């Protein structure tokens, strides 16, 4: 009996010690890597903005970041507005979907404010299957390029199988539909921010004055 009890104690002790050590190791690595990971994800985002809005020059222009809340959704969407002096070069929306094969993925969609068309998309992070769903990234396939130059409001964002206009990735229909879901969310956020900034091309010149009058 005594031998058994001491061995039980030993089991509990060893397991506790190993777990404690593992937890401590993980916690310290997390603390060490937190800053570099945040930096590299920030860098990735600014590179993505640069890649989408090619006319943006980080030395002379500036980026204004805002968040918008889409009705009926909890998570606010971050939107980056790229400026050159006072002209808006484009709007980049950080959108996401929860309907992906790997749960969630985050993409950036850039819009041209004058023509309301998509300038480009960049994948920030995803957990789709290598070789199938990861083709949402334009480095892997031409899937995402089909949206460039399109006005999403006028486009039927469904895959062809379901009567829409989107050419789905072969064998990755779920990822393709999830991509459309993210684009739809991006489009909503884009329209909201555009309304907020009063960026309608015809009114752009007169609007600021109106605002001032209202403020006075």
């Amino acid at each position: 009996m005594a031998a058994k009890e001491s061995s039980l104690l030993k089991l509990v002790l060893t397991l506790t010690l190993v777990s404690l050590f593992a937890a401590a190791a993980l916690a310290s690595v997390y603390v060490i890597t937190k800053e570099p990971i945040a930096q590299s994800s920030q860098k990735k985002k600014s590179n993505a903005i640069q890649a989408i809005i090619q006319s943006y020059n980080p030395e002379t222009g500036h980026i204004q970041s805002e968040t918008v809340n889409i009705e009926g959704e909890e998570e606010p969407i971050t939107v980056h507005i790229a400026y050159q002096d006072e002209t808006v070069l484009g709007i980049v929306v950080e959108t996401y979907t929860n309907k992906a094969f790997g749960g969630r993925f985050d993409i950036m969609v850039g819009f041209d404010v004058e023509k309301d068309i998509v300038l480009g998309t960049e994948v920030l992070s995803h957990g789709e299957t290598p070789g199938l769903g990861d083709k949402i990234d334009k480095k892997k396939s031409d899937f995402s390029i089909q949206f460039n130059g399109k006005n999403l409001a006028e486009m039927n964002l469904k895959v062809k199988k379901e009567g829409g206009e989107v050419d789905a990735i072969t064998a990755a229909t779920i990822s393709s539909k999830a991509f459309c879901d993210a684009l739809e969310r991006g489009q909503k956020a884009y329209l909201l921010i555009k309304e907020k900034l009063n960026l309608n091309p015809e009114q752009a010149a007169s609007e600021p004055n109106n605002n001032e009058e209202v403020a006075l």
Partner: protein
Amino acid sequence: MSKLSIVTKGFIKENPTLVLVLGTCPALAVTTSVENGIGMGLATTFVLVLSNMFISLLRKITPNEVRIPIFIVVIATFVSIVDLLIQGFVPALAESLGLFIPLIVVNCIVLGRAEAFASKNGVFDSMLDGLGMGIGFTIALVIIGTIREILGSGSILGYEIPFMKGNEILIFVLAPGAFFVFGYVIALTRAFQKK
């Protein structure tokens, strides 16, 4: 057993995927192309070598009854640390290997080698075993990936093959194709071994 044979036995004789039939989940899921096979193989090799060394270090203080939970804690901790370090300091590598790293936690080759080899052998031998098994796993993934990419995508390492491009057999990049190729490669390995 000589040091060299500890390494080389993983290549064919005790190939983890083709002979021991371990780690079939990643072997089927990520082998749609050669590149993915190489990525998964190398990431697993790295984790295998280090986890084998750790398990071997701990083998004297590990009570037999709780060895499996301890192995799992060590492996999972190790994979998470590798994941965080790569994301933080080598973002370029995280881009290409990031998808595979979380898959390694559930790869039973790592647990299998901890149980079958590292818990009974010294640190250096365990390291060699991890290296050999990792290379064997990579070889298997590259073979399966090559066949699937040529037949299913008409290319190899992303480069198009003149006749195959346009005549792809799509099923080979889908799940059933993975099973077909896997089955045939195992059969061929067996036939080769019997000689």
